[in-house]
């Protein structure tokens, strides 16, 4: 299997091809079966491959298979190195974790989607896109070089666009007048900005190290190649790409609007997989980042800032999916913060647990929306606990998990990040993340209470969702509980190393070298104390939410009035979209108008001018032809005519005139004759 890992991305591609070409002619059952079955098959192949990988000794867990050369570029860069890019796929501990998450959660979401989209049009188109997305995501995580990864990177961006704008002409946002297609375009364009920076970074690496293979670059960096400034710069460029893909400041604005897509899309792409691509990339390039601490500091700072920033917006959001969207942005911030402080393994751990509970939360939200016939405003929900028990119970589990309460999954991963921040000396980051944890707990329980507790505020006849939708919820709920248990930190196990995930990921990650020292010196008490503090803060958030929202009315509104302007600012999401509109889009549109004006007046003017010139010259030519050429011809005729008119007067008919002429002639002859003599 290890030699055939290229099958793993290719299978969903095949599924997309089947559903794309013949899907409309198949029944919905058949389409769903093909799509889900292929993903399941991919999952099984992934599991097999990972199992085989685990059988290898830890140093050898890096298997690359190439299926052909892509760009035989020849000499590239200042050092004139031979660059050859091939279609390579690498399975190592890091990518093995990723493919299991992607195919596993992906499969559950596919099954859910067969139920959720059952009454929608474009069923086969949806699953074509979904399978295509999985193929691209798997290419992204399995790629052995930056460029193969970039193929997947772009591909998931494309599928995100296609899926967000799936209901392309449905209106999405009343306030801005966006349709779902507009939201998809926004996502794509914002992503593009990041991708531009990303590609420049890749090209710098290619010309400096003569290769775009991850292994080659890491080895080159460790060997000392590339100036420090270059590495920092590339690190920042690549991170900017990650900001676009993983919705960090300043390129997060597309994610809340991406909720225009169907809920399974939000779950898969904007919670579990695509948005985590940035984290994966940073971890993959850990060799680069550890050699460029300045870049890492930026990563950590941006991650932490985004975490708290997005969390504040989650407090006041009223659309169930928007709350979860801001929550995703915030949690991604946690992951980047973890990577930025050097805890790459923690970041991946949190990526995994987040995939479980966030996907669950989104699917649950979808279940609620489905049950309420399309209602998404949480102010119009409530009291669904009794009507949708399975949905309630599973979302309850996910909410505890995201709040980071032991023994749920979120606790272990979040705590590892917090400990990583504190122990590496980034106390400010730690403090910010701690505050964020409390906020997260608060707004997630706010959501839970408003949706499921209290009086029923909606008029729809709420019902539980079908089995196809509730079954994945239950599986994910189980994972949200036990998913964290593969990463239990050493502090809690009294020395025994039960951090399976951490040790599994070790070979894939390059450390700065000072980590081990830190770990050894840190005291157990400190670690326990910090854990307790985190639990306390989270618990505080939960209690506050309970006091404000559970079976209560009006308290939140009173608080909102008290904070007046502050509340308004957060409610309007800090007017970031408006700021971008003003600072970026308006000048851009103005430039577009200038460009168009140039095209219309200058270019078209030139073309029209050429037309006028041509017409003018043709007039000239015509005039020339008419007056000069024809004139000459007519002149000849006129001359002949005139001379004829003149000369014919000689034919007077008078004989004596002729005689006179003859006499004159004789006279001339005589003169000539006498002269000749």
């Amino acid at each position, binding site marked *: 299997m290890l030699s055939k890992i290229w099958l793993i991305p290719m299978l969903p591609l095949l599924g997309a091809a089947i559903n794309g070409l013949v899907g409309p002619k198949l029944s919905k059952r058949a389409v769903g079966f093909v799509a889900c079955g292929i993903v399941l098959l991919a999952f099984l192949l992934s599991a097999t491959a990972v199992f085989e990988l685990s059988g290898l000794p830890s140093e050898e867990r890096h298997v690359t298979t190439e299926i052909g050369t892509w760009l035989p570029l020849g000499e590239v860069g200042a050092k004139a190195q031979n660059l050859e890019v091939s279609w390579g796929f690498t399975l190592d501990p890091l990518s093995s974790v990723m493919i299991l998450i992607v195919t596993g959660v992906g499969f559950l979401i596919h099954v859910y989607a067969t139920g959720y989209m059952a009454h929608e049009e474009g069923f086969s188109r949806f699953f074509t896109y979904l399978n295509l997305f999985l193929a691209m995501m798997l290419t992204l995580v399995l790629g052995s070089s930056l460029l193969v990864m970039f193929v997947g990177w772009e591909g998931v961006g494309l599928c995100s666009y296609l899926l967000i704008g799936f209901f392309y002409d449905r209106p999405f946002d009343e306030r801005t007048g966006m349709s779902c297609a507009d939201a998809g375009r926004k996502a794509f364009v914002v992503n593009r900005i990041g991708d531009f920076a990303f590609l420049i970074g890749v090209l710098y690496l290619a010309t400096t190290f003569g290769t775009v293979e991850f292994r080659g670059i890491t080895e080159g960096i460790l060997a000392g190649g590339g100036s420090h400034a270059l590495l920092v710069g590339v690190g920042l460029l690549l991170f900017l790409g990650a900001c676009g893909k993983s919705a960090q400041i300043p390129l997060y604005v597309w994610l809340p609007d991406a909720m225009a897509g169907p809920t399974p899309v939000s779950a898969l792409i904007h919670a579990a997989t695509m948005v985590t691509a940035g984290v994966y990339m940073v971890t993959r390039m850990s060799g680069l980042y550890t050699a460029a601490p300045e870049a890492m500091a930026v990563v950590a700072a941006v991650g932490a800032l985004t975490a708290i920033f997005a969390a504040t917006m989650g407090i006041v959001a009223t659309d169930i999916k928007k709350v979860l969207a801001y929550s995703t942005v915030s949690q991604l911030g946690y992951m980047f913060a973890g990577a930025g402080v050097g805890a790459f393994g923690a970041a991946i751990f949190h990526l995994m647990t987040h995939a479980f509970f966030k996907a669950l939360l989104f699917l649950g939200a979808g279940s609620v929306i489905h049950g309420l016939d399309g209602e998404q405003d949480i102010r119009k929900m409530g009291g669904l606990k009794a009507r949708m028990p399975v949905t309630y119970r599973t979302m309850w589990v996910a909410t505890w998990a995201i709040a980071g309460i032991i023994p749920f999954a979120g606790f272990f991963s979040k705590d590892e990040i917090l400990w990583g921040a504190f122990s590496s000396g980034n106390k400010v980051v730690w403090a910010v993340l701690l505050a964020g944890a409390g906020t997260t707990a608060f707004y997630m329980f706010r959501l839970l209470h408003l949706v499921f507790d209290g009086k029923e505020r909606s008029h729809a006849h709420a019902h539980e969702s079908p089995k196809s939708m509730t079954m994945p919820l239950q599986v994910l709920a189980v994972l949200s509980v036990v998913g964290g248990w593969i990463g239990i930190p050493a502090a809690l196990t009294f020395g025994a190393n039960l951090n399976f995930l951490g040790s599994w990921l070790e070979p894939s990650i390059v450390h700065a070298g000072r980590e081990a020292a830190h770990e050894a010196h840190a005291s157990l008490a400190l670690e326990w104390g910090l854990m307790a503090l985190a639990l306390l803060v989270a618990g505080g958030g939960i209690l506050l939410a309970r006091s404000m929202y559970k079976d209560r009315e009006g308290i939140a509104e009173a608080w909102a009035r008290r904070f007046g302007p502050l509340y308004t600012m957060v409610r309007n999401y800090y007017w970031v979209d408006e700021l971008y509109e003003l600072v970026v889009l308006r000048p851009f549109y103005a430039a577009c108008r200038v460009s168009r004006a140039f095209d219309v007046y200058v270019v078209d003017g030139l073309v029209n001018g050429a037309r006028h010139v041509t017409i003018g010259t043709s007039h000239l030519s015509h005039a020339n032809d008419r007056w000069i050429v024809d004139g000459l011809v007519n002149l000849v005729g006129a001359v002949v005519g005139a001379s004829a008119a003149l000369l014919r007067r000689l034919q*007077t008919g*008078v004989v*004596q*005139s002729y005689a*006179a002429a003859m*006499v*004159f002639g*004789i*006279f001339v002859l*005589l*003169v000539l004759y*006498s002269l000749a003599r």
Partner: protein
Amino acid sequence: MSGGALEAAAFFVLAVLTVASALVVITHRNPVVCALALAFHLVGIAGLFLLLGSQFLALLQVIVYAGAIMVLILFVVMLLNLGEETRAGSHGRIQAWLAPVLALALAAVLGKAVLSGPAQAAVTPGSGYGTAGTVGQELFARFFYPFEVLSLLLVAAMIGAVLLAKKRV
């Protein structure tokens, strides 16, 4: 009077006669008067021929020209009952000065050519010069064929004249 002086006097008289009658021919309105003047002119010419020693030709001149041709012309004039000629029309205004000019020019050239010739007669002619016999001999010897052709010409002219003058019947 010497022979030369007589000759000169005769020449002078005859010259005056011919020139005068020529002037009458070209100017007089009445065609009959012109015809008579022409007759005088022809006789004058005959006289000049005599003066130059060509007796035969002088005779022929009188018989053919003054006799036959003149009568013919007079005959036609009488037949057509021509009145006096009227003045020239619009074209005549140019012709009026152009003709004399041209004639004058012609005369000038001819005169110049003539005056460059020899002053005296080249040879004194032998006896028999200008007689019928000499001319006839020359005529029938050297100019036999032209003579025959000439007779054909006369026939053609006769036929032509008859045809032209015939009434279309």
